[in-house]
C-alpha cells in the first residue's frame, strides 16, 4: 500500500487523470454514442424469399435462392469486397505468372470444414474436376474448360495454367469450394449432400423443410470469426403480397421490396419504427434490343433516333417510381469498367423525327405513321410474361414512339417459348429483356460478332470490328487499370451504335428490421459484412435454445 501511494506523486497526476478518463468515462460515452460497443451474440435473422432453393451444391445451383444460401455455407478462393474489388477469401494471396497464363493461389491454413476436417488444396482440385466433368450438370463449366492444367504443389498451394491468358478467370475462382472428403465417392447430380451440405462458411446447415424454410446456425470455427447472429432462417413465401403482410406483423426481418412498397406501402409509422429501408443500385439493366438484321434497324441513324424518342427518365418515374438510373451501357455504373463520359442521349422527339427523316422515314401518306418505300414503320417488340416492369416499360415506349409516328406492337410470351422459339432463333424484330451486370465486366458472349449462332447471346446480331478486338484484347489483361481502357471504349461504341436501346438500371430495394446493428451499406450492397451484424440483447426476438 505504501509503495503504491509512493507512486502517487503529484507530477503524475495529469497522466492519471487521462488514464481515469480513458478507463471510466470513455466507455460510457461510447455506449451512449453507440459505436464500438461490444456486440451481443444471439437472435436470428428471418429473410423472406419468393422461391425455395433447389440445391445447396453451389456448382449446380443456378437460381438466386440457392446461391444466396450457399453464400453463407461456402467460400471461394477469391471474393468481391464491399467496393467491388477482387480480394482473397480462401486464398490468402495469389500471383499472376507467365504473362497471365498461370495463376498461383496461396491458401489459408487455418480453415476447417463444418465437420472439423481441414480445408486443403485437394478440395480446390476436386471442385475443379467436378466443374469440368461432363457428367456433372453444372452451368459453370465454361470458364474452367480454358484451364490447361491444375496442379497442387503442396497442401496449401494451387497452380492453375491456362491455354491462353484469360483475365475473367481470376473472378471465376470465386466459385465456392466443395469438400472432397465428403463428396469423393458421391454422384454430384443425385447426392443427398445437396440437401444436407457441409461447407466451411460462416454458417452451418441445420435444416431444410422444402418450400417452407432453410435454417442455418453460426459456425463457431469460422476462420474470420463466429458470426454474432446465431441463426439465419430463409422462409419461402411465394407471393409478394404475403411477404408484405408478413412484414406488417414483423414476421420477417428482411425482404426485397417493390418500388411501390418502398415508396408508399412502407411509408408508415409502423415501418419507420421497426424497419430500415435500403436503396442500392441493382446489378441488372433492362434494354430494348433490335434485331440488327431487320431492314428497319440496320441503319444506325434509326436506332439513334428511337433512342432520342424515348424518355428513359419517364420510364423510371412510372415503372420504378423514380427508383433507378438511366442506363448507358452494359457495365456496373461507377465500376472501373464503366465509362462515365458516356452521357445519356437527350429526350428529343424533334431530333428523332429529323434523324428518321434523314434515314428516309417520312409520313408521305399523312396517316400519322412514318413510312419508307411504301412500308409503314411498324414493328413488334416481344417480352416475357411475368415481368410487369418490362411490360409497362414497353407500354410507355409504345406511346412515345407513336408520337413520332412509329408503331410498336407488344407481344408478351411465355418465358420458355420466348427464349427458345423467338430469342434463340432470332425470330424477333425487337425484344425487351434484362441482363445482369456481373462484377467481372467481360461481355464477350453478348457483343462479339462470333456469338450469333442459335442459342448464343449476341442474338441481336451486333457486329463491330473495333468492339470485337477490344473484347478479345481486354480478356488478356489482368490489371484493371489497363483493362478498363478497352471496356470504356466498348461502352462508348455500344452507346453510339445503339444495338440496344439501353433503358435503365433499377435500384435494388430492401427492408431490414432495425434491431440489426453493424449494417454498413456499400457499393456491394449490405450483405457483405453479415457476420459482423448483431442485435442488442434486449431487442433480440428469437432464442436458440429453450
Amino acid at each position, binding site marked *: 500500500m505504501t509503495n503504491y501511494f509512493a507512486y502517487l506523486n503529484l507530477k503524475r497526476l495529469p497522466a492519471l487523470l487521462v488514464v481515469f478518463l480513458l478507463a471510466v468515462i470513455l466507455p460510457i460515452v461510447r455506449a451512449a454514442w453507440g459505436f464500438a460497443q461490444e456486440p451481443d451474440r444471439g437472435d436470428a435473422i428471418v429473410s423472406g424469399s419468393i422461391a425455395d432453393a433447389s440445391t445447396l451444391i453451389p456448382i449446380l445451383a443456378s437460381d438466386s435462392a440457392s446461391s444466396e444460401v450457399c453464400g453463407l455455407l461456402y467460400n471461394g478462393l477469391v471474393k468481391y469486397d464491399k467496393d467491388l474489388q477482387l480480394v482473397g477469401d480462401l486464398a490468402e494471396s495469389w500471383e499472376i505468372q507467365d504473362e497471365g497464363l498461370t495463376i498461383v493461389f496461396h491458401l489459408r491454413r487455418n480453415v476447417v470444414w463444418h465437420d472439423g476436417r481441414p480445408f486443403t488444396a485437394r478440395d480446390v482440385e476436386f471442385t475443379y474436376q467436378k466443374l469440368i466433368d461432363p457428367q456433372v450438370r453444372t452451368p459453370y463449366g465454361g470458364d474452367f474448360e480454358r484451364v490447361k492444367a491444375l496442379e497442387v504443389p503442396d497442401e496449401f498451394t494451387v497452380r492453375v495454367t491456362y491455354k491462353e491468358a484469360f483475365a475473367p478467370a481470376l473472378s471465376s475462382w470465386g466459385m465456392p469450394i466443395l469438400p472432397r472428403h465428403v463428396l469423393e465417392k458421391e454422384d454430384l447430380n443425385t447426392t443427398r449432400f445437396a440437401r444436407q451440405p457441409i461447407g466451411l462458411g460462416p454458417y452451418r446447415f441445420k435444416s431444410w423443410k422444402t418450400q417452407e424454410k432453410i435454417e442455418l446456425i453460426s459456425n463457431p470455427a469460422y476462420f474470420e470469426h463466429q458470426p454474432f447472429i446465431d441463426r439465419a432462417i430463409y422462409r419461402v413465401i411465394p*407471393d*409478394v*403480397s404475403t411477404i*408484405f*403482410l408478413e412484414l*406488417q406483423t414483423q414476421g420477417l426481418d428482411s425482404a426485397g421490396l*417493390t418500388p*411501390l*412498397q418502398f415508396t*408508399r*406501402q412502407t411509408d*408508415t409509422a409502423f415501418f419507420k419504427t421497426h424497419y430500415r429501408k435500403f436503396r442500392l443500385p441493382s446489378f441488372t439493366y433492362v434494354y430494348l434490343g433490335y434485331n440488327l438484321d431487320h431492314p428497319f434497324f440496320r441503319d444506325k441513324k434509326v436506332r439513334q433516333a428511337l433512342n432520342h424518342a424515348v424518355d428513359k427518365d*419517364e420510364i423510371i*418515374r*412510372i415503372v420504378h*417510381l423514380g427508383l433507378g438510373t438511366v442506363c448507358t451501357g452494359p457495365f456496373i455504373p461507377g465500376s472501373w469498367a464503366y465509362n462515365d463520359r458516356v452521357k445519356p442521349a437527350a429526350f428529343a422527339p424533334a431530333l428523332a423525327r429529323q434523324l428518321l427523316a434523314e434515314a428516309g422515314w417520312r409520313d408521305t401518306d399523312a396517316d400519322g405513321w412514318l413510312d419508307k418505300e411504301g412500308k409503314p414503320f411498324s414493328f413488334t417488340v416481344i417480352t416475357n*410474361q*411475368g415481368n*410487369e416492369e418490362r*411490360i*409497362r416499360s414497353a*407500354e*410507355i415506349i409504345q*406511346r412515345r414512339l407513336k408520337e413520332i409516328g412509329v408503331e410498336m406492337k*407488344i407481344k*408478351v*410470351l*411465355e418465358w*420458355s*417459348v420466348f427464349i427458345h422459339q423467338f430469342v434463340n432463333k432470332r425470330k424477333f424484330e425487337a425484344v425487351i429483356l434484362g441482363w445482369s451486370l456481373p462484377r467481372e465486366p467481360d461481355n464477350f458472349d453478348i457483343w462479339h460478332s462470333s456469338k450469333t449462332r442459335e442459342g448464343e447471346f449476341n442474338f441481336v446480331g451486333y457486329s463491330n470490328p473495333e468492339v470485337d478486338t477490344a473484347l478479345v484484347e481486354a480478356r488478356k489483361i489482368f490489371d484493371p487499370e489497363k483493362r478498363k481502357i478497352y471496356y470504356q471504349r466498348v461502352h462508348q461504341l455500344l452507346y453510339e451504335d445503339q444495338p440496344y436501346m439501353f433503358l435503365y438500371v433499377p435500384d435494388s430495394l430492401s427492408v431490414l428490421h432495425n434491431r440489426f446493428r453493424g449494417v454498413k451499406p456499400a457499393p456491394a450492397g449490405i450483405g457483405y459484412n453479415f457476420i459482423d451484424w448483431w442485435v442488442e440483447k434486449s431487442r433480440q426476438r428469437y432464442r436458440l435454445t429453450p
Partner: protein
Amino acid sequence: MMKRNPYLKIGLTIIGLLMLITLFAPWLRSADPAQIDAAQLLMPPSSAHPFGTDQLGRDLLTRIIYGARISLSIGFIAMGIAVAVGILLGSLAGFYGRLVDTLIMRCADVMLCFPTFFLILAVVAFLEPSIFNIMAIIGLTSWMGPARLIRGEILSLKEREFIQAERALGASDARIILRHLVPNALGPVLVNATLGISAAILLETGLSFLGLGVQPPVPSWGNILIEAKSTLGVAWWIMIFPGLAILVTILGFNFIAEGLKKIIG
C-alpha cells in the same frame, strides 16, 4: 316464367345491366383504358375517377368496364366451346351407343379425373397466355358436364314414341339429333353452362393470380384485381372495386342458373 322466380329476376337484371355497360363502354367512359398518366398514379376515388386510378394512373372504372368485355367474353366463349364440344360428343355417344359411347364416355371419365386447374395451368403456362388460348383451354377442359347431361337425356329420349315415329318416317340421324334430341336435352345443359360461365371467369382470375391469365395491357378482371396484391395498404380501391365487380357478376350468373333450375326442375 319470371313470376315468383326472384333469383332469375335478380340474375338477369345484373347480367343484363352488365351487358349494356360493356356494349356502351366507349360512351360511358371516354378515356382510353390503357392511357397511362404519370401525374395520377394511385389516386383515390374522386369525381374524375370514381373508382380511383391504378399504378400507372389509369382510370380504374374505365378499366373495369373494359375488363368486363374481356372477362365476359372469356366466360361466354369458353362455355360456348365447352357446350358445343359437349353437345357434339354427348349426342354422338347417346345416339350411337356401343363403341362410340364407350369411347367418348371413357374419354370424359379420364378428363374428369384430372384436377382441371392443373391441366389448364400446365397448358396455359406452356402456350402463350393469349385470351384465345385461355378461352379454348377452359372450354376444352369443361365439356364433360354438358356431354354427360346431353347423353343422359338422349338415352332417355331416344326410345320415346316421337323419335321412333320420326325414324320410321325416314329422318336422318343428324336431323333427329339436332331437331329433336338436342333441343329437348338443352335445359339442364343451360343451367350447367350458366354455372360454367361464372366458373370460367373465376378461373381466369385464378390464372391471373399466378401470372398466367390474360396478359396486360389488355384489361381483364383477373389482372386488374391482382394489382391489389402489389398495392396492399395504399390503394384499397383496387382491392375493393374489381373484387366487387367479379363478385356481383358471378352472383348474377349463379342466380340465373338457380332460377333456370327452378323452371326446368
